């Protein structure tokens, strides 16, 4: 079989991504946001294999880049300088379609001693900011976007990818000690985007599963007083289902995985306005678990 197209392979833990692109800026950006991954070009199995190809240089409103997957273009093109956000967003979407061997929650995941804290939330609730801040506070970073749960064992698999910070979160995280951010992409429709780079140890541990210990549903609101409320298991299951990509599609498998997850963990709802207060509260609660 002839494999003419050269692919760059990124092993992010629960999945392997392969991409092909002639756009040099994209590869430079990837070097910055995946600094701890070996740059391999092996031709093994990839869960997602995409090409990011430049559009016509003659387009009046600026050159664009398209993501091609299996000969099709599933998304609208991006401006060419935003090839990295397109790759990150597009490959995550494709993964959400293909990783239905697992229960996929829309959640950040961090861990202490391989015991995982899962932070499921809808967009705009401060999940990414909190996940990044916890990583900077010494927690292992497993994922910002997906909690990948193996229904057979109940374990969570890491998917260590750069976390897209938006607008004010960029400065909030960027100002913290040891924070590493990728390039700034100004003026996407959601505003400015820059990616937080998870630390080296988290990246190296990307194949080490963790056991879920706690679930916390975070909600950031500027100026809000810290309020942390325990949730009973039944409420937690319902809210896990609502924050899942594929809970319905998995049918009984998804239901049992969510029930097991709620049984094995303690769940809280965390309403906060100050990041450090939230982290202190999380540390205390997590340490108090039996």
């Amino acid at each position: 079989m002839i494999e003419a197209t050269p692919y760059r392979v990124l092993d992010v833990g629960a999945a392997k991504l392969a991409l092909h692109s002639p756009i040099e800026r994209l590869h430079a950006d990837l070097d910055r946001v995946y600094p701890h991954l070996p740059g391999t070009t092996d031709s093994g199995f990839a869960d997602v294999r995409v090409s990011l190809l430049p559009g016509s240089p003659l387009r009046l409103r600026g050159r664009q880049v398209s993501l091609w997957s299996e000969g099709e273009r599933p998304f609208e093109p991006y401006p060419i300088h935003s090839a990295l956000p397109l790759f990150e967003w597009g490959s995550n979407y494709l993964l959400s379609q293909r990783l239905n061997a697992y229960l996929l929650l829309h959640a950040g995941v961090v861990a202490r001693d391989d015991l995982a804290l899962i932070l499921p939330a809808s967009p705009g609730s401060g999940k990414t900011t909190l996940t990044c801040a916890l990583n900077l506070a010494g927690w292992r970073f497993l994922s910002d976007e997906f909690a990948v749960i193996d229904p057979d064992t109940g374990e969570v698999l890491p998917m260590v990818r750069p976390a897209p910070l938006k607008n004010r979160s960029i400065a909030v995280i960027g100002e913290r000690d040891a924070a590493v951010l990728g390039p700034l992409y100004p003026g996407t429709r959601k505003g400015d985007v820059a990616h937080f780079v998870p630390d080296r140890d988290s990246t190296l541990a990307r194949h080490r599963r963790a056991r879920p210990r706690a679930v916390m549903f975070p909600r950031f609101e500027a100026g809000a007083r810290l309020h942390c409320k325990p949730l009973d298991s039944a409420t937690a299951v319902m809210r896990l289902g609502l924050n899942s990509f594929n809970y319905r599609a998995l049918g009984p498998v998804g239901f049992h995985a969510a029930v097991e997850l709620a049984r094995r963990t303690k769940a809280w709802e965390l309403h906060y306005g100050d990041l450090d207060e939230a982290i202190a509260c999380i540390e205390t609660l997590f340490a108090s678990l039996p």
Partner: protein
Amino acid sequence: MSPRASAETALLLRALHAPIELDEPGWDSLLRRARASGLHARLAAAQAATPGLPDVVRRHFLSATRIAAYRRKLMEAELFQLAALCDTGFPVVLLKGAAYALQRRRMATGRFVSDVDLLVPAAHLRTMEQALRAAGWRSEALSPYDERYYRDWSHETPPLRFPGHSLELDLHHAITPVTGSLAFDPAPLFARAEPIAGTPFHALATEDQVLHACVHCFHDGDLALRVREVVDIDGLLRELAGQAGFWDRLLARAAELGLQRPLWYGLHFARAWLDCPVPGAVLAALPPPAAPLRRIMDTLVALTMLPGDLDGPPSPGVRLARAAMLARYHRLRMPAHLLLPHLVRKTLLRLRASVAAKKEAPDAGAP
């Protein structure tokens, strides 16, 4: 000569019927080809028991199998809701996927369901549509022109959807466009439709199911990546070939309904691509296209329906073939005095839309 599939595509089509052995890069390539043509859950079903599958391949098969099962559940839920509306004085016929599933056909395993197709007698079309609307189904608002296009020149009503459901419902009163060269009075279809046991629905007679699959496969739109419909035809034929007198009934029915040409194409490509056991005498009994046309169709159909290069956009040859097949579709669908004004109008509207449209990129970072 026969219409050629590339070595990789030929391998995929073979893998739908027999276990195969591959290394990880080989499975990667095969799965991509299967995804491109919507055949990955079928591949999963066919290879489920293959020994020595890499874990990662097993995981992708499990994923595809779960999604196919979920879509089938959605379809069953849709049919459950529809059943309440079918206590009528006329037959409500399920077409294609919904019928295959309720008839428990083997070939329905791993088949992705995308919509539900119903066929009712033209005289009862309005009644059925009103019953659906009264029960909550809705169609998108159409311009008066599009509305008229569907009503007068098509063989179906505008697609309906129950709010919040992901499957679309298409209500047909014929299986060929009423203005097209294949148009025929669908009364014989209803005369031989069979009740599906345990349901209020009907299915087409088995020969008519094959003929409809052929018409749908070769006379609908640009035919891009329709190889899965040839896989349907192959699956039906393999399942029905054992029935006594099946091939004779199929030939007689094709002659009666004027569907010999679509049947010829269906048998020809199912045999060429999937090794479908069609007796030579059956194919020989159908009038074939003239040799030059046949050569052109062999090339164009293969380029259009089979997956090509997966690493980027379709090649210029594939794009040209798809455009040619689309032109053929329009030509077969409407006579020139209707078609030309229709295309001019659609082209002007598209131009106006593309000038007005401000295409925006999707959000970065949003799930």
